[in-house]
């Protein structure tokens, strides 16, 4: 077999076949899945999934991207009987394709140096917890290997600062900082926390699928 066009055709055919099989055909399936009305346990209805709001959550996703959170945190709950995601409380149910139809792109992740975040908005609804954890994970999770993101804060020692309207001021615990130390999150930090709090995979699988 010494014919160049024939080799070229074969080489292209194999890769095009897999492009269709792995990406384009599944994509046709996903394109059908738009947000739909689902009934919650209490009988009320809601549309799911919900798009990120464009003021805080969507910019927060950009911070998540820029900081490379995906390299240590996945956003997918494995099914029951495959790993222990549900037992660990990382989700009420496995993740399904519809959870991601509005995510552009989804940060599914392949590594769990840290825990899964698919439902971090359900597990950790507290702003202050997130702010302290991001400032230095050792405050809330001693022994963590997550890097501190102090550069996302204004830090003041001594008197309580007067932050811009809408920014929270949080005092670091005395066990962590001997002098009175205050942190004010930057807009980036606030957006990131809004995004993290938006991460919720709700409703039953059957309802969602």
């Amino acid at each position, binding site marked *: *077999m*010494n014919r*160049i066009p024939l*080799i*070229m055709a*074969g*080489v*292209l055919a*194999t*890769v095009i*076949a*897999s492009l269709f*099989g*792995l*990406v*384009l055909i*599944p*994509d046709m399936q*996903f*394109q059908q*899945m738009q947000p739909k009305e689902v009934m919650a346990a209490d009988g009320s209805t809601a549309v799911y999934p919900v798009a990120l709001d464009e003021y805080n959550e969507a910019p927060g996703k950009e911070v998540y*991207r*820029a*900081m*490379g*959170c*995906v*390299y*240590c945190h996945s956003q*997918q709950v*494995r099914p029951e009987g*495959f*790993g*222990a995601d549900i037992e*660990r409380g990382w989700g009420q149910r*496995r*993740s*399904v*394709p519809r*959870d*991601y139809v*509005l*995510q*552009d*792109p*989804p*940060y*599914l*992740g*392949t*590594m769990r*140096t840290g*825990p899964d975040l698919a439902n971090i908005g359900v597990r950790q609804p507290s702003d202050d917890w997130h702010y302290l954890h991001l400032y230095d*994970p050792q405050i809330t999770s*001693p*022994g*963590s*290997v997550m*890097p501190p*993101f102090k550069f996302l804060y204004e830090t003041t020692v001594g008197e309580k600062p007067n932050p811009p309207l809408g920014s929270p001021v949080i005092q670091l615990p005395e066990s962590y900082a001997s002098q009175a130390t205050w942190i004010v999150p930057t807009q980036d930090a606030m957006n990131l926390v809004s995004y993290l709090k938006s991460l919720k995979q709700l409703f039953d699988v059957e309802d969602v699928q």
Partner: protein
Amino acid sequence: MNQPVPHGDPRTEFDTMDVGVRAKIDRSCREVVLFWYASSVFWLVLGSVLALVASIKLHTPWFMADAEWLTFGRVRPAHLNTMIYGWASMSGMGTLLWLMARLCKIPLPWRETMVLAGFYWNAMVAIGTFQILIGNGTSIEWIEFPWWISIPLGAVFLIVIALTIKMLRERREKHLYVSQWYLFGSTIWFPFLYIGATILIHSPAAIGVAKGTANWWFAHNVLGLWLTPIGLASAYYFIPKVLGRPIHSYYLSIIGFWTLALFYNWAGTHHLIGGPLPAWLVTVGTVGSMMMFVPVITVAVNHHLTMVGNFSKLRVSPTLRFIVFGAMSYTLVSVQGSLTALRSVNETGHFTHYTIAHAHLGVYSFYTMIAFGSMYYVMPRLVEREWISSRLIKVHFWCCGIGIAMYWVGLSIGGWMQGTWMNNPDIPFLDIVGRMIPYLWSRSIAGTLMTIGHFAFAILVWKMLRREGEWLVEPTLFISRKEAAEAAATVQPGASS
């Protein structure tokens, strides 16, 4: 010289080739290939430093923690992209051009264009890495460069494809050796994958989880259809070349090529097993991974049967030692990869450092070691000087060889434990983080060893480029001149290095 050569025998192909013709081809490659090689070594050293920073941060999180641009989530992709697009792709391109010229038996055409392309490539990798460090990376694994870098990078390949086709059409050797198949395939596959995946991920052409499958269709195939073909093309060329005997079976090598082309494509979704995918898609990925046993076994058998009876030459030839190390790692990494696609293995190994160990076994132990071996053979022929020190080559080999072995063993065991602990909900997550720290330290130590090896190699390449070695009288081998002379009796004259 137009009669077909049976069994793609590089010995008959080349040793009957006029020495003058060979020298002319080497001279035509000189500036181009040396430029791509030298650039790749620069990225190798930079990528190693970035790797060390990332590795240390994983067990010592306060290390350089105040530098936003060096936060773990940026250093890690900066490391990956400098290594893949800087080191691996540029060294691969150098070898690709040289092999193509040698196998087509024609001087390298479009030399100025290819040097310019090298400058352009360097600039793109530099800008792309900078963009990752300032926070403009995409956080899509292996495609972290912004789209306005990845599309121009892929587009350069239009020139490379045209050049490859031109060389193949004008070749003076009618018979195509298996290395040429692999090289030609890789020049078409890479831009198709890179540009295709960039469009799918940054445009509405795919939505939701389809962007995730596009990610792994690409990322798995960068290794499988870009670096692997170059690595295999090099192994198929240099092992017979250094030994001075033909490859065991021409037909096995062709079967190996087409089965790789058919099956490697489909294996990528095994990175998403247990994820939010339709079940059939995961099954397809698992089947593709299992079918990879076919090309892997054919290549392993072919290389092994070529080597049989000649293992003693590993003591002598740096090229052979690096390349055989790489070729054996190819078998190991591929078998491991196929097994990783099994649900039961994936349940534990996925989401852990086990996968990281596996990735390094592929890109480093297989591809990078073969790239080192190739450069040890090619560079003296381009510069017309020998390597300055066999002791430094030894330092390079043993630091990298022991380093990657330690890396793989440490993280494979650690990662497997990590997965086992994670699947046991009674162990708190933070406990697992703590228990992993010794394994992460072992990675930093292994990485330091490998980096020392890379510096040794960089010194060798620097001295080579400054033409500080001796005239090309006899190759720099691992053993003394006297021993080498005795061993040379068993090595094909003019075929060793």
